[in-house]
């Protein structure tokens, strides 16, 4: 080799030219080659000509921010955090992570803490902190929340879309039901009984139910428990906080961090003891799996992410769910043709085909996928007065496809998608776990 060649080789050896800089979003920004695929996939940009799209909100804004006098653009608050951009980027740019960071910075530095928007967003993001109040007096709360005067006050005072129906509080929360039923000890007994002689060591799961199935749709959580026990799993229900999804989406990163820390500590300890973490809400599993490890480095964060599963997914991997369903049936009058919508957050976890695939083999129901559009509500997004129209426009395609199905029942894993589906079509919306419960347990 000539000296010149040797020099050239030496010069070409890999070196880190950014040494000394703290870990930042530069790699994500550098990996973006501006193909704009994310922009073509963004449901908000699809209906809102003023929204600059995920490429701007992520890598471009990050680059702009290198100049010291650049503020985060307020359009970041129009991102609905559906995270669809993540699943199309061919270059693995952590778009939603960049959006979460930018939104947090915008809220922290540019939004007045006394503004109506901030107060409203804080309330929406912290639904789990307020819900216990309503859940204490469900009838009264449901009555008051259903009054048109309440809606008017909320709309005028807080900017919460008056068109929306507040979700009703359940008469009994899931956790109250759980305690009344005998808690973890009772679950252990039931699981043992169902298992018969089988070894038990690895049949233990910790349930992350989330706030919504606790306060509003406990039937979903109860189904989870019954189905898992039927397969011989001991379920534990530890104390937990909101997964953080609505907090990320509203840029309330301090609130999210506190909740995440609590959840990670709680569930990491259980994972350590051999439990897997099961979620019934796909946004909760998304938070535990993706957002936590992207944003936090508490002890156990990665361990929790690696051991968290969506409820059907876990059974599918570990049990003969196909076989069980092939021999079972559900009443056609109750389920029939289910208009299934795959939540965006399920899509990101590769779970969008799962429910239809599984339940197609079940007698008494014929689930139909209503297509890959976004429902438009994106958690708290569609609750905001100024976002309501956008939210409904995004949902239009889904509503139409739902109307095309034979029956009048829908199905989805996400509680807010379910709200939107019901709001747009009047359909009754079920969770796949409820179908499993009806097929295999009840």
């Amino acid at each position: 080799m000539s000296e010149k060649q040797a020099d050239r080789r030496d010069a070409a050896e890999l070196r880190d030219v950014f040494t000394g800089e703290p870990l930042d979003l530069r790699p994500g920004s550098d990996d973006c080659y501006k193909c704009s695929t994310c922009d073509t996939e963004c449901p908000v940009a699809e209906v809102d000509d003023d929204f600059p799209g995920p490429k701007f909100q992520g890598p471009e804004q990050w680059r702009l921010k290198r100049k010291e006098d650049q503020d985060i653009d307020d359009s970041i608050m129009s991102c609905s955090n559906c995270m669809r951009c993540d699943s199309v980027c061919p270059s693995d740019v952590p778009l939603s992570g960049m959006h979460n960071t930018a939104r947090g910075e915008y809220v922290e530095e540019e939004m007045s803490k006394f503004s109506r928007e901030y107060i409203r967003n804080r309330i929406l993001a912290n639904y789990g902190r307020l819900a216990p109040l309503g859940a204490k007096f469900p009838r009264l709360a449901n009555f008051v929340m259903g009054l048109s005067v309440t809606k008017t006050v909320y709309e005028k005072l807080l900017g919460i879309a008056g068109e929306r129906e507040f979700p009703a509080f359940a008469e009994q929360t899931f956790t109250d039901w759980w305690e009344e039923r005998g808690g973890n000890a009772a679950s252990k007994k039931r699981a043992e009984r169902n298992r018969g002689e089988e070894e038990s060591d690895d049949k233990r799961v910790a349930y992350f139910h989330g706030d919504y199935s606790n306060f509003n749709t406990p039937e979903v959580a109860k189904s989870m428990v019954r189905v898992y026990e039927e397969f011989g799993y001991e379920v534990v229900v530890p104390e937990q906080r909101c997964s953080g999804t609505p907090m990320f989406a509203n840029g309330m990163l301090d609130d999210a961090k506190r909740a995440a820390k609590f959840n990670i500590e709680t569930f990491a300890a259980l994972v350590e003891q051999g439990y897997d973490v099961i979620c019934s809400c796909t946004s909760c599993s998304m938070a535990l799996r993706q957002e936590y490890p992207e944003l936090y480095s508490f002890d156990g964060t990665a361990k929790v992410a690696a051991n968290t599963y969506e409820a059907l997914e876990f059974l599918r991997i570990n049990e003969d769910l196909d076989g069980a369903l092939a021999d079972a049936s559900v009443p056609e009058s109750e389920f029939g043709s289910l208009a299934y919508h795959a939540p965006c957050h399920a899509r990101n976890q590769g779970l969008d085909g799962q429910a239809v695939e599984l339940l197609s083999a079940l007698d008494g129901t014929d689930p139909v996928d209503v297509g890959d559009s976004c429902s438009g509500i994106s958690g708290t997004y569609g609750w905001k007065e100024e976002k309501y129209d956008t939210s409904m426009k995004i949902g239009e395609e889904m509503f139409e496809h739902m109307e095309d199905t034979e029956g009048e029942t829908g199905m989805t894993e996400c509680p807010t998608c379910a709200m939107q589906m019901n709001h747009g079509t009047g359909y009754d919306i079920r969770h796949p776990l409820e179908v499993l419960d009806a097929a295999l347990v009840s």
Partner: protein
Amino acid sequence: MAIEDDVVVVGGGIAGMATALSAAREGAQVRLLSHKESTLRHASGLIDVLGYADGLVADPFEAISGLPEEHPYRTVGEEGIRDGLDLLDSVTDYAGGHTDRNALVPTFGGRIKPTARYPKTSASGLASDDRDSLLVGFETVVDFDAPLAAERLSADVPFDARGVTVAFLGDFRTDARITRLAHALDENERIERTRNGISTSLPARTALAERVKPHLGDAERVGFPAMLGEERPGEVIASLEAELGADVFEVPMGPPSLPGMRLETAFHDALKDEGVRTTSGNPVVDFEGGDELEAVVVERNGAEIPFYGDQFVLATGGLVGKGIDSTRERVSEPIFDCHVPAPEDRYDWSDPEAFGEHSFARFGVETDDELRVLDADGEPEFDNLRAAGGVLGGYDFAAEKSGSGVSLSTGVVAGRIASEQVNVNP
């Protein structure tokens, strides 16, 4: 006890989708695993079989026998290529099937691309047609410089090509997505226009035709960047042709490519019709099994999800698609660590000349006649693992313009054999 299918295909591009369709049509239950959404929106939408081999190729089928022994076309043969094109024709309504000869399609850079199949929306633009052409670009669609493209084109074609840049209609954002503009044409949205203080509104297609008319001159056909609708391009083109009194065609563009997206939709519909189960969003990173492959493992943020199958096809793409990886020490196939031949000294991987004979362009796995992936000793890596598309070595898709053709033909053949092999040795 698990997620299980007959044939598991890894990779969601043209090769993977062709494999999955082919296997499903032969009767297998197929699972298609794709890391992300398909990369077809990065593709021109043209289906090349063989454009160049020692110069421009007029008839790809006549040129195959002259290709080197290790070229995938030598493995699947003319029949495999024809089967691949038949599969494409069953999925799309592309033009070009009437002849074996290559069509010459003008590109957005003003060059001519030899290709085997092309969307009907580009049919009036062929360079073999000698009618004078007007190319129309839009101020905000900066990837397509119509006057420059026309100037370059004029040097190579037997007709007069002119180019003009006009403003798109209405008051869309300067950086409006190309899909947004296509959508306006799809829906024929009404576009506001103010002239002399009087505001009128016109349907988008009419408004576009009005804008182009003053530039039409003697041109008998008009080319636009490929954004004439996402869902109803045929309708948009027919409306424009009626208004302009001239033929209208699309010039294929870079990402995000509408012809690529339309092709993706056509494939997705076909996959759905055939009952193929698609799982996307996360990468395949590992496998289970010994001589026989039992499962591939998908990683979801640390959790590992096995997908069991009887037969497997690797269709993960080449160096660009991440199906082939390299470090400074070696070239590898990241999931199974299949053998990928490469010169030991990495300075031999490339040629000093930009358009020289690059060895890296041909990196990929080797297979036997049945597309089973081979190890360094020429023995199958696994009894039930085949490969299709860009992950195959022995050809340079970029220089040859053979990417889609190799993907379709090897996909069809790999899918068919995989399906035939299901339950052969229960």
